Structures are given as C-alpha cells and as structure tokens.
C-alpha cells in the first residue's frame, strides 16, 4: 500500500499545486503574525482564514485529483491489488500530502510565534479538517462518474459547511427563540465539522466570554478535557464515516 501511496506522492509533487498551497499558507500565517502585536489575535484571524481555505482546497484538490488519476486506479485494478488497498493508498497519499502542506504552511509559523495550547489546538483542528474534507471529497467523487457532478457535489458540501449551515442554524434559533436552545445547539454543532472546529478553538482563545450564556455552556462542556476528547472523536467520525462509505461504494463499483 505504501508503494502505491509513493506513486501518488510523486504525482502530487510533480503537479506543484500542493507546493503552491503550502507557500500560500506560509505567507498568510507569517504576515498575520508580523502584523499583529498580540499573537493570540493573529491566531484568531488565522483561524477564520483556515476555516474557509482548508476545507475548500482539500475538497477541490482531492476531487480533481481523484478524477485525474482514474486511469492510474484502473490500471492498478487490473493488477493483483485489491480494491480496498488501491482506495486507501490513494486516500492516504492525498490526505497526507495536504496535511503535510498544512503543517509546514501553518504549523511552523504557529509553533514559532504562538506555540502554546491554543496554537497546538489550531494545528490539530486544521489537520483533522484536512482529513475530513479529503474523505468527503472521496465520497463525492466515488459516487458519481461524471466529473462535473462530482466537483459540484464537493462544492455543495463546502457551501453547506461554511455558509448554509450557519444560515440554517440562525433560522432554527429564531424559530425556537422562546425555548432554551443551548443544549440542542451544542448537539447541532456536531453536524458541521467546520463549526465544531471553530468552537473548539474559540474556547481556547478566551473569547467565549463574548458569546454569552451559550458560550458559557460551550465552555462548560467542550472546554473540559472530556469535551476535547468528544470534539476530536466527532471529528474522527467525520473522517472515518465518509471514508468507509466511499470505500464500500468503490468496492461494488463497475469500472
């Protein structure tokens, strides 16, 4: 499996997009840390950029790479290699290179300027989100043979996570304004990995005081060690569940 992943890596390195992505992240994070006096404010700005850019790039790149390497996958499947192996090797190749890009691009500046618990939390969430969206991208691309449809589906997932979900949540909160909504909101945030990541880091940043009673509740629950485990567990589920579904589809698929 590692052998196959190695060919995926060499292909990714050759097409240079991931290298450009690394440089972009590096420039953004370095300049944010240079501009802001207070590194924790820089982390907050960085967080907002990461929550938009990381899912988008992971998703679009993984989807397009999947369709581009269709021939490669087809060729491997005429060889004595099982489908599960081919699939996981492709996923491992793409997700690890995107995660490495994130680690170099954001991780190194963060560890230099703000290497405390918040910084580490930011890194962890960023890496996990990279994996989450690579898995979701794989699910979208395995489900449809048509490239345009696959990329469209991937973008819809991204829209849902970054825009539509917030709108829906607001709508829900307005509709049920007369009821205590703190606990349901907490549960609802599990339905969006980006939101979950955002809340998790916000709580590390002590800005939760600004979020009122809900913020306090979040802090009570997610701010504790148990909350960290739950958050990371849910993010892990967001990685494994789509991956498992995609693999199941891929194993049954006609090529």
């Amino acid at each position, binding site marked *: 499996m590692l052998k196959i992943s190695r060919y995926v890596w060499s292909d990714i390195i050759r097409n240079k997009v991931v290298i450009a992505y690394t440089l972009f992240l590096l420039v953004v994070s370095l300049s944010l840390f240079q501009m802001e006096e207070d590194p924790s404010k820089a982390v907050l700005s960085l967080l907002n950029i990461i929550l938009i850019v990381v899912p988008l790039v992971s998703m679009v790149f993984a989807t397009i790479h999947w369709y581009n390497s269709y021939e490669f996958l087809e060729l491997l*499947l005429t060889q004595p290699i099982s489908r599960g192996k081919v699939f996981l090797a492709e996923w491992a190749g793409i997700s690890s290179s995107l995660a490495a890009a994130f680690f170099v691009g954001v991780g190194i500046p963060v560890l230099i300027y703000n290497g405390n618990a918040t910084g580490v939390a930011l890194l962890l969430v960023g890496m996990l989100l990279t994996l989450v969206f690579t898995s979701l991208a794989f699910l979208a691309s395995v489900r449809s043979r048509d490239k345009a449809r696959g990329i469209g589906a991937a973008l819809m997932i991204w829209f849902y996570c970054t825009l539509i979900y917030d709108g829906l949540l607001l709508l829900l909160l307005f509709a049920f304004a007369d009821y205590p909504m703190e606990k349901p909101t907490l549960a609802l945030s599990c339905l969006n990995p980006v939101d979950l990541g955002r809340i998790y880091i916000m709580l590390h940043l002590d800005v939760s005081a600004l979020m009122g009673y809900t913020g306090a509740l979040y802090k009570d629950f997610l701010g504790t060690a148990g909350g960290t485990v739950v958050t990371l567990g849910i993010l892990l589920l967001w990685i494994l569940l789509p991956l498992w579904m995609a693999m199941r589809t891929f194993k049954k698929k*006609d090529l």
Partner: protein
Amino acid sequence: MIDIKHLGKRFRKLVALEDINATFSAGQVVALIGPNGSGKTTLIKSILGLVRPDKGAIYFQGEELGSDGSYRARIGYMPQIGRYPDNMTIGQLLRMIRDLRGSDVSLDEELYYQFHLDRLQDKPMRGLSGGTRQKVSAALAFLFNPPVLILDEPTAGLDPVSSEVLKKKILREKAKGKLLLITSHVLSDLEDVTTHVLYLQDGRVFFQGKISELHEQTGEQRLGKAIAHLMQHATAQGELEEHEFIYIKIAN
C-alpha cells in the same frame, strides 16, 4: 481453468449479460465474437473483477473470484483502449507496474523489444498515438508471463507489421499451453490462431465450441462466413421480429 456459471449483469435497464455459462481450459485460444454491445468486454471485465456481476459466479483455477484480487497475478490483460497516467513515460510506467507487482517470475520482455518500445522509453504517455498505446498494453500484458492472457481487440489500431508480431507471439504462447481469450472484430485476424469460439449476442451465448464444430454446424469453411451465418441465424429466431415490427410502425 476459468469456469463461468450463470453469470448475469445489468446496467440499469440494459441487460449486458444473461445466464452465461462457459468453461475455458489451458491450451485453448478462445475467440470471443459478437456484434458491438453484445457483452464481450463486460464478460472480460467480470473475469478481471472490474465489473461486479449481479448473478452467478466465476471460478478461476477452481476458486471463486475473491475480493483481494491476488488471482490477477495469473492474468495478463490488454484492454481495448489502454488508458494510462498521462504524465508518466513508457519506461516509468513499466517500472512502476514491476515495482508494484514485485513478482519474482522471470519477465518476458520479448514484445517490448520487438515493438521497439525501448527506443520510446522516455516518451510521455499523453503524446502517444493509439497504435503505440496498444503496443504498450500488449507488452504489459505479456510481461509477467501469466498462464492466462486476455486480449480485448488486440490488433485494432496496430499496423500490419506489428499485428503480425503480436499474432506470432500469441501462437508461441499458445504452444506453451497457456489460455488466451481474444476478442476481435477483424475475424480474419483470428482465423489462424483460434481453437475455440464463443459467440455472444445480446448478452447471451449463441455458440460455444471448437472451431471445427462451428464449421460443421454452419457448413462454412471461413470464420467470417460462419459467423455471418450464426448472426443471421441468431437474429432470425425472435429478437428481430420485434425490431421488424418497430420498423414497420415507423414506416407507416
């Protein structure tokens, strides 16, 4: 060597294969013949595990096809349209497959040199002509000396010289007692190498047996004519009546 039992496959509404039963043994050269869309490629892809059949089972050397795909080490496959990673060169591609298979069998590079692919080593796959791609596919199929070879339209797109090279190679492998499954539209190409014929139409087997039996049954000596006879015979038995009815409806 390969046993196919009650194999069935549908693509949505289209019935690609229906209740296929066949047995192929070592030393045979089987010509898979049938009109376009008769299910030849689907059958081949089912054997390779690229298409998942809905019904029936395929046994390879007595074992039902498993999901781990290890049986494919014993199959060399030459696809109808060879699709390869665009940004690799011929040399890289062959090295990669060798590396991935990591097999210890002696390599058979005969075709690689006979097709002069060694001179094209550094050419990227994206710039290759259809014929050269076919040559790469052929070289790859024979490379690991597998006991079973599946060739889908092997001579399509090859020039006469290369086509002859490939045909000679097929004869040599046949003499070694290997099983070869070949599909082709150019029937004259198959004439002098085939030992058995499997004729498919609309996803069903219409004829299966030795080539001599085919000559007997149809009374034709040339493969092309015998197949033409089969085709007319097959269509006369029902399917066509429906078509004719539609034609009449359209005409009116």
